[in-house]
């Protein structure tokens, strides 16, 4: 069965919520889809024990109040075709036909392999924050956070609020870079306030600069972590280690839709024009998918994309100055939280890089390209479809990211055979239509 809508928004974080709201404000029919059970995305992730920030509560309340905005939780896109997507929801599939599409697919953490990173108890920093908000037993646990960027502080504050004993936050960036970053904050008063609030909430927690996790040790779970800094190597006993090196845009769905990607540093992002339209007519993208920008960028870009998708170009255009200001802050982060080469050299020959297929770094040596390595070692062929190892290998400089359209094959996520069977000829149909579209567009 095909269900029609005017504007389809994928992702219900700050960008997606803003897009859905903006589009719905013009009276068109909007469908908002997200994998999670609650709206909010990662930064506004629903917390089962604590209340959400005021901005998040307001955004969700506004979404629920709109009768022309249909909220579809715990659903994900598994395949695409021009003007249509196939969605899997609670084991069932449905096809949604859209007039315009807004991709608000957000970002994921950059996770780099190091000895012991596969041990239970080692996770991403934002990951542990998300898990904790959803009931993960963290009270009384000794946690060490490491990696780079402001997310480490936000994560530490959440963990502490839930009763964790935060042993230390290890930031790989050197002192000088952090001071220079702080000295810029006055231009964004909101950020300055946020930083001050975090500092208060983290009073007493050691913030170690120029230090990073070298290895984690344990048997069936992590017991100890090895920290490296100018002082040498130190071993610290702990229950959980949360390591994140910043964020990387989620571009798989955009790639499958045929949207052009471009490189932002080492990783791809969705290419958009001033109106936030991708290279595919009627498909817009907003927020982290277009380059890491944080919540302010996500909200303003989401609103712009939502207005534009509903045909209200003037309303979208009016937000351009706000977008520029928000993006200017985002541009600071890669400059001051630049990764040191040490963290890219932590994996040893025996360290597993592909966690799905248990492929060690040494097994990847000697291949001329990623495809050859993949065929011979199965690296990137497991359940995560290369989302974790592919991103890591790109950061390590061992993989050239694909930026050409149609780089990713369906399904977008591993899907039950029953869903594919129910979809009938959908995938065949979408593939042939896509081929036709590519040929007719020539070298676009």
């Amino acid at each position, binding site marked *: 069965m095909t269900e029609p809508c005017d504007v389809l928004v994928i992702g219900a974080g700050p960008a997606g919520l803003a897009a859905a709201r903006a589009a719905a404000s013009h009276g068109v029919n909007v469908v908002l889809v997200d*994998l*999670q*059970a*609650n709206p909010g995305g*990662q930064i506004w992730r*629903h917390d*089962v*024990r604590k*209340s959400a920030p005021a901005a998040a509560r307001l955004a969700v309340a506004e979404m629920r109040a709109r009768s022309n905005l249909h909220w579809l939780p*715990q659903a994900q896109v598994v395949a695409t075709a021009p003007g249509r997507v196939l969605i899997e929801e609670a*084991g069932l599939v449905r096809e949604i036909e859209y007039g315009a599409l807004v991709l608000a697919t957000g970002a*994921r*953490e950059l*996770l780099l392999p190091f000895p012991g990173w*596969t*041990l*239970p*108890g*080692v*996770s*991403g920093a*934002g*990951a*542990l*924050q*998300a*898990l904790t908000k*959803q*009931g*993960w*037993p963290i009270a009384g646990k000794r946690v060490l956070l490491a990696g780079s960027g402001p997310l480490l502080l936000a994560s530490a504050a959440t963990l502490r609020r839930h009763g964790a004993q935060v042993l230390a936050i290890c930031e790989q960036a050197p002192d000088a870079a952090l001071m220079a970053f702080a000295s810029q904050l006055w231009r964004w008063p909101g950020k300055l306030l946020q930083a001050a609030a975090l500092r208060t909430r983290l009073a007493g927690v050691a913030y170690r600069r120029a230090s990073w996790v070298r290895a984690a040790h344990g048997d*069936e*779970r*992590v017991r100890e972590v090895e920290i490296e800094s100018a002082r040498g190597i130190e071993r610290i006993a702990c229950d959980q280690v949360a390591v994140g090196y910043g964020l990387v845009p989620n571009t798989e769905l955009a790639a499958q839709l045929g949207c052009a990607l471009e490189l932002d540093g080492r990783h791809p992002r969705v290419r958009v024009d001033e109106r936030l339209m991708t290279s595919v007519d009627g498909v817009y993208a907003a927020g982290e998918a277009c380059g890491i920008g944080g919540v302010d960028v996500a909200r303003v870009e989401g609103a712009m994309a939502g207005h534009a998708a509903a045909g209200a170009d003037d309303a979208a255009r009016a937000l351009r100055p706000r977008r520029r200001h928000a993006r200017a802050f985002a541009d600071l982060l890669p400059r001051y939280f630049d990764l040191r080469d040490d963290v890219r050299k932590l994996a040893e020959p025996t360290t597993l890089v592909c*966690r*799905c*297929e*248990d492929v060690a770094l040494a097994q990847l040596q000697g291949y001329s390209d990623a495809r050859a390595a993949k065929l011979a070692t199965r690296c990137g062929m*497991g*359940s*995560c479809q290369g*989302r*974790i190892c592919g991103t890591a290998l790109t950061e390590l400089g061992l993989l050239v990211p694909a930026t050409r359209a149609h780089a990713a094959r369906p399904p977008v996520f*591993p899907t039950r055979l029953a869903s594919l069977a129910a979809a009938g000829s959908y995938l065949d149909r979408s593939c042939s239509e896509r081929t036709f579209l590519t040929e007719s567009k020539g070298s676009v």
Partner: protein
Amino acid sequence: MKRSNVQLSIDGIAVEVPAGANVAAAVAQLGLRFRRSRSGEARAPLCGMGLCFECRVSIDGVAHQRACVVVARDGMQVQRDD
């Protein structure tokens, strides 16, 4: 704020979590191990948001469910291991 808990079974052991918690939180009550990798290593959630599939478990007989994106419900039967 709602205070009710839900009770589910992990490998046949009764576990309680706050209402709205995900299955990952319930599995973690038993310790940190979730699945076993191809070579038999113990694994647990890495990304916490439905990308890495390290937290996959079997829920009510359906294999390969990501524990981090499924909300825990009363009476769910969860099995670890692949």
